[in-house]
């Protein structure tokens, strides 16, 4: 047995040991990195009705409470959600057959009835949208669901970044005075790099 053979033997042993250990070490390092990583989320909010106002603010405020970095990009009708007064947001039953029509008052059996009103009537009767909006506002109150105003404030307080599509401001003839203070007015080129780095990206 020469020295060369012995070296080759040692080398083989080392290699075999390394191959065993490397995946373990790598997995451990990856797990540690995953655990210490701050989550992040980028949302695009495009809708301006009372029902659609909830998802971006609920998810945004909750993600911030979990310690994530959150930014919401408001564009098109989503800008309605940033107006100083959001108490006039409406819900439309038109083209929304999934919406249950239940009364938020009266005895239990009455509240349980789902009023099956054909969409064509909901669309045609003047004032139906106002009634549907009032019913939904009452239902929201009855169920201890936060108001949009409150969820928006909680989101901002928790550090959620609100950025606004300046193009939409121009397109719809808004002015910055129409909206709450503390907003970033930007374009698509500002949103995309944020979205690129985010773990979760949602379009609403």
């Amino acid at each position, binding site marked *: 047995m020469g020295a060369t053979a012995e070296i080759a033997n040692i080398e083989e042993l080392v290699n075999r040991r390394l191959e065993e250990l490397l995946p373990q070490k790598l997995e451990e390092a990856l797990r540690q990195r995953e655990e210490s990583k701050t*989550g992040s989320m980028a949302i695009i909010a495009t809708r301006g009705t009372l029902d659609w106002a909830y998802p971006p603010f609920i998810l945004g*405020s*909750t993600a911030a*409470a*979990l*310690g994530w970095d959150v930014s919401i990009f408001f564009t098109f009708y989503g800008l309605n959600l940033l107006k100083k007064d959001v108490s006039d947001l409406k819900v439309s039953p038109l083209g929304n057959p999934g919406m249950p029509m239940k009364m938020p008052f009266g005895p239990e059996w009455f509240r349980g009835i789902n009023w099956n009103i054909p969409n064509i009537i909901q669309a045609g009767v003047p004032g139906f949208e106002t009634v549907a909006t009032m019913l939904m506002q009452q239902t929201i109150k009855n*169920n*201890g*669901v*936060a108001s949009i105003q409150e969820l928006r404030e909680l989101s901002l307080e928790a550090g959620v970044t609100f950025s606004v599509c300046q193009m939409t401001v121009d397109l719809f003839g808004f002015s910055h005075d129409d909206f709450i203070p503390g907003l970033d007015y930007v374009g698509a080129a500002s949103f995309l790099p944020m979205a690129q780095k985010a773990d979760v990206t949602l379009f609403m």
Partner: protein
Amino acid sequence: MNFDKELDARGLNCPLPILRAKKSLAELTSGQVLRVVSTDPGSVKDFAAFAKQTGNELLASGEQGKEFEFFIKRK
């Protein structure tokens, strides 16, 4: 179980119990315990997930009638 602060989240719905708990925890110092009482059935799984994500330990949780209680230790 002993606790340093109490949060009444009864009647509040998702995501308010979590948001309020987060705020209350921020007022505690590390190691102190927050007791939360809620009536939202969804909050049972939500508080477990919240604790796991934020590293604030969920020491105990329980159910009494239609109420749920949680003891969370500030990280």
